[in-house]
């Protein structure tokens, strides 16, 4: 009987599954155009005040709208600003602030303000929440009050007290009643004892050291530092000259002591004897409590017994250090401060060791909300009053306001409460489910099933459906987002027509790389082959090379050799065979960089940007070397000319054979190139290595020399490269698309420590470039370093300084062109050293279903392919299902 029951139960379970499998799939949906996609990870919150990751911000990308947004320009070749939650342009009211307002926000009724510190933003009166409640000036002011609420500690609060839109007194409001770790430099006085002026400083009586933390002290030592590099680490490690052995050793000990203490739980003890390995800020970030701070209280049993080497490795100073404690550290900091890092007024003070340190500051100053720089002007106008030092142009302001901060305050407060067992208050707004959130964009969140499914549908209360300004936009009626943490599963769903896009990895590219449905999303990063060009370092490496990789390395210092290597790389094929969507590239700044935000001018589209390739490859198009009159290498070749590569290699070999320097290349020697890589097992790395090896072997065979190109795994290869312990590496560099000027720092600033072409740091101080920068017919000469400084110091003209638009425009254009001339000539000059060989411009790739078409076939910086705003549908949902069922759409179709 029991057996029978078991049998019946099993049969029932199986039967249910099978019968269920036969259920009719037919169902009706009120939506015609549904876009199905996926996320790999569940958003933990989509509260605009508290999101942290891109997955967190996914939902608000559809359900919220900035005051301004970016759309296609009329010709669909670039971007243009669109007024969305704002009804018009920001109006600069800096000169219209009343004495009362100045007193309130700046504590001085008579303060003279520059333009660009106060703006009125007219609001869109038709904007509503998804439930129909109007959105007005109160919404903005009250939402900001919650964003900056000191009790909530919102992750996004800093967006409005640091950065381009720093509201007056917002920082003080946010930090009041709380401790924060602040640099001592801001608090110590210049009088005899350098006692911190503010009694709230050092509220816990302790000093902290933080090599990576911002301190104005670093700015006092080195001018021209940006916020990310103005720290004690920079002061310690970016010195361009030796001061004294005492200072050098003090620097080494501080680096070592802080590094050792912070990272000892993760590092191999043996590595700690190599102090140069522990000086990285990145490592220090791995502190066990995540605060990147070091308490002064070194345990008594903490000591070092290893020898230290003087920076530069010129001599071994075998000083034994034992029981290195707080007093020693304090003394070393004093040595450094007095030796290299102090403005003169501080240098002689015995207490000068305080300058680079930090202390806990208790912010007990009460800042009333009224003093924070946001106010309601009328029901549909707000005024943003920025910090006095935070001038911002209209364009930059609009960029910053493409995001928004408003929340439905009644719901926000209802979901708010104190967290038990902590000092924190928190809100569940935008967390857990659609009922905890209110949308106001073109779409609203309708379902949020944690870790499973997100449904976003058309928000009928959005002003854009009826304002006549969004015709033909937002055709999508519903977005369905699944959570698939397994890429293979997501890929199967795509192949079965259940999701409409998927990001491709290198393996997928083999299958779908040639599909017409693949889209490449470029990044601003250029991947380069960077060479060690220091004869001394290479000679040493040559002598110490392993027995099975003996060969010449000093030949890398020969520019013709590096030119040969560069010309031997078929970048187009490299990109297609070794990467997922990247493209062959020969410059330092790729197509994404914008040199004029207002007009949407891309650097690569300017005459100056266009002049770079022809200037570098002007005479490299023939089959023989003719550096004066040789044919130009066409841009379609992307720097590839194998025949000429062989000729340059032969020339380099001849020159090196004739050299009289010890360690030069000799007849019959192999050329041994060691490529250091992060991960030797990576498919991309293996493919890249094999590709380059084949290219080098080919030109070597033709030039009569054997290459020994071998790969070695080194997870710390970037830092080893900076120390000269390498032959060649793949280095990747890029940055903010709107700041190509600053990006040149890595190549042109001799004090910048991320240059991966060892030996070039010194050269940039002496390598001169001559050209007519200002178009006056006269050429000017400066070092690369000098031109870079000029670029940073030159500022484009301000409209406020001119009487008429014409005068301003003329002056602006002149200065802008001059800056472009300098930028392009810097790029040309550096590329012409062939010390770094750009290979690809990095990109990611995704594939999109036949169901939809994007607004642009071409990637447009800052707006990509147009996103959901411009997406159109080739199939309705039912047509798509029918096409899948009939086999009209299948996975094979995407391989074409």
């Amino acid at each position, binding site marked *: 009987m029991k057996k029978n029951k078991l049998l019946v139960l099993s049969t029932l*379970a*199986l039967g249910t*599954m099978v019968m269920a499998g036969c259920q009719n799939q037919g169902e009706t949906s009120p939506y015609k155009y549904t876009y199905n996609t996926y996320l790999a990870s569940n958003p933990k*919150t989509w509260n605009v005040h508290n999101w942290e990751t891109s997955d967190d911000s996914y939902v608000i990308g559809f359900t919220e709208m900035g005051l301004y947004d970016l759309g296609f320009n009329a010709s669909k070749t670039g971007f243009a600003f669109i007024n969305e939650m704002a009804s018009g342009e920001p109006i600069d009211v800096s000169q219209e602030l009343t004495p009362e307002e100045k007193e309130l926000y700046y504590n001085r009724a008579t303060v003279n303000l520059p333009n660009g510190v106060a703006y009125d933003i007219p609001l869109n009166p038709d904007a509503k929440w998804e439930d129909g409640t109007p959105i007005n000036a109160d919404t903005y002011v009250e939402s900001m009050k919650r964003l900056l609420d000191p009790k909530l500690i919102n992750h996004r609060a800093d967006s409005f007290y640091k950065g381009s839109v720093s509201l007056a007194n917002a920082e003080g409001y946010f930090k009041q009643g709380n401790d924060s770790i602040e640099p001592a430099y801001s608090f110590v006085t210049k009088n005899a004892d350098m006692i911190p002026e503010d009694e709230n400083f050092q509220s816990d009586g302790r000093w902290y050291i933080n090599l990576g933390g911002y301190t104005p002290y670093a700015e006092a030592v080195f001018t021209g530092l940006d916020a990310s590099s103005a720290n004690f680490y920079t002061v310690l490690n970016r010195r361009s000259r030796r001061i004294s052995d005492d200072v050098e050793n003090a620097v080494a000990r501080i680096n070592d002591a802080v590094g050792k203490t912070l990272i000892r739980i993760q590092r191999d003890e043996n590595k700690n004897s190599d102090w140069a390995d522990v000086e990285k800020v990145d490592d220090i*970030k791995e502190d066990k409590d995540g605060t990147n701070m070091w308490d002064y209280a070194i345990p008594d049993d903490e000591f070092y017994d290893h020898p230290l080497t003087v920076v530069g490795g010129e001599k071994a100073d075998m000083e034994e250090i034992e029981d290195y404690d707080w007093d020693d550290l304090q003394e070393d900091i004093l040595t450094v401060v007095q030796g290299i890092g102090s403005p003169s007024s501080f240098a002689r003070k015995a207490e000068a060791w305080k300058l680079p340190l930090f202390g806990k500051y208790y912010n007990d100053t009460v800042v009333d909300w009224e003093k924070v720089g946001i106010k309601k002007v009328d029901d549909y106008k707000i005024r943003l009053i920025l910090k006095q030092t935070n001038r911002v142009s209209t364009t930059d302001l609009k960029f910053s306001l493409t995001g928004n901060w408003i929340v439905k305050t009644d719901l926000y407060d209802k979901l708010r409460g104190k967290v038990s067992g902590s000092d924190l208050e*928190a809100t569940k707004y935008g*967390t857990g489910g659609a009922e905890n959130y209110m949308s106001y964009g073109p779409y609203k969140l309708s379902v949020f099933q944690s870790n499973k499914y997100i449904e976003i549908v058309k928000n009928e209360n959005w002003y854009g459906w009826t304002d006549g300004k969004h015709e033909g936009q937002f055709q999508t009626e519903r977005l369905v987002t699944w*959570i698939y*943490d397994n890429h293979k599963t997501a890929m199967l769903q795509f192949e079965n027509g259940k999701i409409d896009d998927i990001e491709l990895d290198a393996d997928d590219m083999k299958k779908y790389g040639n599909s017409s449905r693949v889209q490449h999303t470029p990044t601003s990063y250029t991947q380069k082959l960077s060479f060690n060009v220091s004869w001394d370092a290479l000679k040493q490496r040559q002598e110490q090379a392993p027995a099975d990789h003996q060969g010449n390395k000093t030949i890398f210092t020969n520019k013709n050799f590096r030119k040969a290597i560069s010309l031997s790389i078929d970048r187009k094929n490299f990109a297609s065979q070794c990467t997922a969507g990247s493209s062959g590239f020969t410059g330092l700044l790729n197509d994404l960089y914008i040199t004029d935000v207002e007009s949407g001018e891309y650097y690569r589209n300017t005459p100056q940007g266009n002049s770079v390739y022809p200037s570098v490859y002007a005479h490299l198009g023939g089959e023989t070397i003719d550096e004066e009159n040789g044919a130009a290498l066409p841009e379609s070749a992307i720097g590839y000319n194998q025949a000429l590569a062989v000729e340059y290699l032969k020339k380099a070999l001849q020159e090196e054979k004739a050299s009289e320097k010890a360690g030069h290349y000799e007849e019959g020697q192999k050329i041994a190139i060691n490529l250091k890589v992060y991960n030797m097992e990576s498919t991309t790395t293996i493919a890249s290595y094999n590709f380059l090896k084949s290219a080098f072997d080919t030109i070597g065979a033709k030039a009569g020399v054997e290459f020994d190109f071998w790969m070695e795994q080194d997870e710390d290869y970037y830092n080893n490269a900076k120390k000269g312990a390498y032959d060649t590496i793949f280095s990747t560099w890029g940055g903010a698309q709107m700041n190509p000027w600053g990006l040149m720092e890595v190549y042109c600033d001799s004090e910048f420590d991320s240059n991966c072409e060892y030996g070039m740091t010194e050269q940039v101080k002496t390598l001169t470039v001559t050209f007519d920068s200002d178009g006056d017919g006269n050429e000017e000469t400066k070092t690369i370093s000098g031109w870079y400084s000029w670029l940073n110091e030159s500022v484009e003209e301000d409209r406020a300084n001119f009487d008429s638009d014409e005068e301003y425009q003329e002056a602006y254009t002149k200065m802008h062109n001059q800056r472009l001339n300098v930028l392009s000539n810097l790029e040309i000059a550096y590329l012409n050293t062939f010390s770094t060989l750009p290979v690809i411009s990095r990109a990611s790739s995704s594939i999109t279903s036949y169901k939809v078409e994007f607004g642009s076939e071409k990637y447009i910086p800052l707006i990509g392919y147009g996103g959901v705003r411009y997406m159109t549908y080739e199939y309705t949902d039912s047509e798509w299902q029918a096409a899948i069922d009939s086999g009209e759409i299948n996975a094979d179709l995407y391989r074409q």
Partner: protein
Amino acid sequence: MFKYILKRIGLMIMTFFIIFTICFFLVRALPVSSIGAPGSDAEEIFRRYREALGYNEPLIVQYGNFFVRLFTATDGGNFGYSWNIELLTTPWDLMSSRFPPTVLINIYTMIFSVPIGIGLGIFMALRKNHVEDQVLSVLVMLVISVPSFVYAFLIQYLFCSVGNFPYSTVEAVAKYGGNWFAPEMTASFFLPVLAMSFGTIAGFSRYTRAELTEVLTSDFMLLARTKGLTRTQATIRHAFRNSLVPIFPMILGEFISILSGSIIIESVFAANGVGGLFLESINKRDYDVFLFVGMFYVLIGLVGGLIVDLSYGVVDPRIRMGGKKNG
């Protein structure tokens, strides 16, 4: 017996706290880093946030605070909250929302695979050393030797890529919400159940075969036959019952494991159950979730072990627990 159970429960509680303490200290000792750059305001906010949550206190203080909150919290956050997986959700809510797919997949797997496994084992024992037995034995060894996620990928390929199987768990969940017994929901479990069943079927069949083979060759079986019982009667009434002594606790163990998930199988079939939650809580340093989920399974394991031990005595009255030597 009663004293034995009390003693085991006492040991269980002690073990639980030792494991809890180790887990508590180890997970909080893991390095944590802010998304913000060193020295940035984002990092400073991160520091303040952690400080407000008490995570910057010495570990021993945090340990004490945990128990204070456990017994004093009035907002339902006695076991804390998730801060990195789903903001402000209690660990229990988080775990319970992911339980249903995990539990159902495991129950269906048991219902499906235990009878088949035992049946196959009986068949193999009765046909011992025949071709059928040898073929099945090889297959069983093959299946046991290969990890279940390999089948998962194979099944995914055959059913989803080649066969276009129309159901996925995550889709069914989305469609039917809390209705876990909707037909389409059940159908969507077919593939993960299949993937998990291979190993269970092979395990039970191998074990049953071994036990039954041994019993079938016992003297009492000869006696049963000489008493005049048919082979079937002797096998079912005597041999199978005796062979169940070690198999029954195995079935019980299988029931206990119902609550635990399979990280890879859930991931492959997008079941998004409790399996991945534990891993996610470690990766994201979601301390309260990690401790809650981790300790839940520790408790299940400890209770399960106790029940399995006690079950021996129930299945076979000859086995006595906690007995002492007399005289």
